[in-house]
């Protein structure tokens, strides 16, 4: 009985401590602000994203040199905390600088400088993504598929963390824009046609030997049990293989696949990709939702297969799915803190890339990659073709109805280079129309910036 108490106490201290320390309600560490100066948040190449300045009177102000650009991912540290300021609060207010120098500072009555959080974000790419998204609401996530490092994470509408205290009242009272929400990790959107990556995977798994025999004659619409699915903009694709149906983002063909597919297989494919689960990351995020099951109606089967229906996904999750395909089927844990170091540069803790799970066989990943390549070479993402880097991806035009008004979110998820993937980009522009018209050009700017600076 007593040993149980001791055991649990050890358990809390070993396994639960980080989670509890970074709980946004935990204000314990704030008290140590009285003898520690909050550490800085910097990129690997030394660009300062957040730092504490001290004026002549010893007053401390937190400053964010890039203002709105990193607003959500870095977060804020007044009026509560968010983003990295919240997650790494404990680290920022802890000093691992040598005991001697701490004691010396203490003896001089000076404050000790807290540790620095070094992030994987690329300040240049983040800026490109921020400006590329322009005035659209939505999110951009860029990451390395083989490491899981997040290179850019943008969410709009945004805010200026430098002036958040002054603007707090108006921001909190404005429900319509929810500018404080990090849409990249917590915004739940219908995936639209980007979900066809998963529907295709389910089809591959149900027809491992003859999926390339698939043939469909697209008549522009498909009606079953009074539910009609049409291709976008009244297009009429005619005779298609699975590959061309994917490249054309043909809704009728995929609705037909949805009718034929065993719902269990589609559900398994979605859940393999972590729908209805938490993602393997410490970042606070929403769970994506997939609700099709064996009792679902024919209409739900068709709409779910084309990424409408009740399915909802976060941009981070879409990036992670794409990243898994790019990485030969192996999902890496996404992370954006590279390491913690003391203010004078001594390493404290290092986060290394780590494999979460093998989700796809290399063959499955290869086929999906080939289909995504066709989307670029001859399909809806043609704008990304022939730019000096090879690219593979999937567009989406996700229709939604809110308060009786319908609109279309513009999606793109893809990666470059096809042979040796360097970077994955997921873009969603709210009310941006088709994927081709808005999200693809935004992604192109990011790919261009990555390869050409």
């Amino acid at each position, binding site marked *: 009985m007593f040993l*149980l108490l001791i055991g649990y*106490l050890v358990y*809390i*201290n070993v396994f639960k*401590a980080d989670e*509890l320390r970074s709980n946004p309600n935990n204000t314990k560490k704030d008290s140590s602000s009285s003898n520690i100066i909050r550490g800085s948040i910097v990129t690997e190449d030394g660009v300062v994203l957040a730092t504490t300045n001290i004026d002549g009177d010893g007053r401390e102000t937190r400053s964010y040199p890039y203002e709105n650009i990193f607003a959500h991912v870095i977060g804020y540290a007044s009026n509560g905390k968010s983003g990295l300021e919240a997650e790494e609060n404990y680290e920022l207010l802890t000093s691992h600088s040598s005991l001697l120098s701490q004691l010396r500072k203490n003896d001089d009555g000076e404050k000790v400088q807290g540790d620095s959080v070094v992030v994987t974000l690329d300040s240049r790419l983040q800026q490109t993504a921020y400006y590329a998204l322009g005035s659209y609401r939505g999110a951009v996530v860029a990451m390395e598929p083989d490491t899981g490092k997040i290179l850019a994470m943008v969410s709009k509408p945004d805010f200026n963390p430098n002036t958040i205290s002054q603007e707090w009242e108006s921001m909190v009272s404005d429900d319509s824009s929810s500018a404080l929400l990090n849409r990249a990790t917590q915004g739940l959107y219908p995936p639209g046609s980007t979900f066809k990556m998963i529907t295709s995977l389910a089809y591959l798994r149900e027809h491992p030997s003859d999926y390339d025999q698939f043939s469909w004659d697209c008549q522009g619409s498909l009606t079953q049990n009074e539910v009609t699915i049409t291709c976008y903009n009244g297009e009429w694709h005619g005779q298609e293989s699975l590959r061309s149906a994917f490249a054309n983002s043909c809704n009728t063909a995929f609705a037909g696949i949805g009718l034929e597919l065993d719902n269990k297989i589609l559900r398994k494919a979605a859940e393999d990709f972590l729908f209805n689960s938490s993602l393997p990351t410490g970042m606070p995020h929403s769970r994506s939702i997939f609700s099709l099951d064996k009792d679902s109606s024919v209409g739900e089967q068709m709409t779910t297969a084309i990424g409408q229906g009740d399915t909802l996904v976060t941009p981070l999750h879409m990036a992670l799915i794409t990243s898994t395909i790019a990485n030969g089927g192996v999902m890496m844990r996404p992370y954006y803190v590279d390491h913690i170091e003391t203010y004078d540069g001594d390493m404290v803790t290092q986060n290394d890339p780590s494999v979460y799970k093998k989700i796809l066989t290399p063959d499955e990943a290869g086929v999906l990659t080939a289909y995504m390549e066709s989307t670029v070479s001859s399909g809806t993402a043609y704008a990304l073709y022939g730019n000096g880097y090879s690219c593979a991806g999937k567009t989406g035009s996700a229709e939604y109805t809110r308060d009786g008004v319908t609109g279309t979110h513009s999606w793109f998820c893809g990666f470059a280079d096809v042979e040796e993937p360097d970077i994955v980009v997921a873009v969603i522009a709210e009310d941006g129309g088709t994927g081709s018209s808005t999200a693809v050009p935004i992604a192109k700017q990011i790919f261009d910036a990555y390869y050409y600076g």
Partner: protein
Amino acid sequence: MSLSNLTGLVHTLTTAAQYLIIALMLVYTIQSYTVFRRSGPEARERVFLRQNLSMFAIHFLAFASMFLNTMQFDILIFYGAQVIYLLFTLVLFRNLYPRASRSLINNMCMLETVGFIMLTRLSYDLSIRQFQIACAGTAIAVLIPFIVRKLHVLTRMTWAYVFVGIGLLGLVMVAARSTNGAKLAITVAGFSFQPSEFVKIIFVFAVAGLLSEEHSFRRVVIATVLAAVHVLILVRSTDLGSALIFFLAYLVMLFVATRNPYLVLMGILAGAAAAVAAYFLFAHVRVRVQIWQDPFKDYTGTGYQICQSLFAIVAGGWVGTGLGQGSPGAIPYVQEDFMFSAILEELGGIFGICLILVCMSVFIMVVNVAMQLRNRFYRLAAIGLGSMYAIQVFLTIGGGIKLIPMTGVTLPLVSYGGSSVLSTLAMFAIVQGLYMLRSDEVRENAPEKRFIQQRPGPDQTGRAQ
């Protein structure tokens, strides 16, 4: 030296004191176990003395850091009074009862010391009150071993215990004002006290009386019904922590008396059924369970206390923030119900684990005493008191670290609470009395057997019909 330099120096000294305190606590804890392995009385004596030294050193370091951080001279005077009290207790017990268990006295004083330190840190006024009660309690407790040893009539007052126990609990149910949803205390002549703390001891004696003479089916039923009355009155007063302590202690005693595992199994099943019923019947039980499952769900409301407790625990980590450096005051009712979390925050996880081990050593000592007693009444009483103690420690610490749902009981001798301190001191004193009875028995049963048979010793009275 400028003021800021001084602050820095104080900080450095406090940190050093913190590590020393942890080291000393480790030494103390290890000694409270290794002492059982020492054979010679001189060797044991040396260990006991070293334990006392560690305790006074911890006491000194803690008060020195608190003084340096607050610069209040009252603290120094209070410190002096505590040293006198502790010395007095140690010396008094040793001289009045040379055959008393030193290990138990040392642990009692150690737990009190930790309590004094943390209470002074949390609330100076409360700690003075607690100290006064401890002094008064010790004065009474000093007489108890004598009474236990000499007044064998104590073993034959079963029904008096039953009536007083149920009467007191009933009085609380009817007359007590409700604090935070639980009816705990009644006020007599300006003093507020919690009868359930004292009924714990009376209850153990009552059950010991009921089950020691015989354990026929009829007896077991009577005892169980009477125990159930106690428990139900406590449930009715919504003092669920005490109800659970009484219930579990009864099961342990029932098992030791009858050696019948089926009875205990039935008891556990009945208890489980009652717990499920309570969950559906009482909203506050449901709330407690929900908080336990996910305290963050209602962070600003019902879950606040336990969340703050968890934050305190991880803020402390292994070595603690140092006395006065944390913010355990953020936990509501920290002095009564979350003392252990406050200790974890400021003195650290290692110190906390040592404290649990010290509590465990107390329990082991009590069980040891029980096992060596021949008289069934005394043996059952010792087992009952020991299990009450262990269950209470488990409930309060387990609740604070979210291993089990919160029940709101005190950590004996460490938490704030006059009645709790008094009854725990009495419990320690009773066990001391029993410990000495044990050595009396050993001696009486040794060579002069004939002599004993002529004299109605405790052994005989226990077996009387």
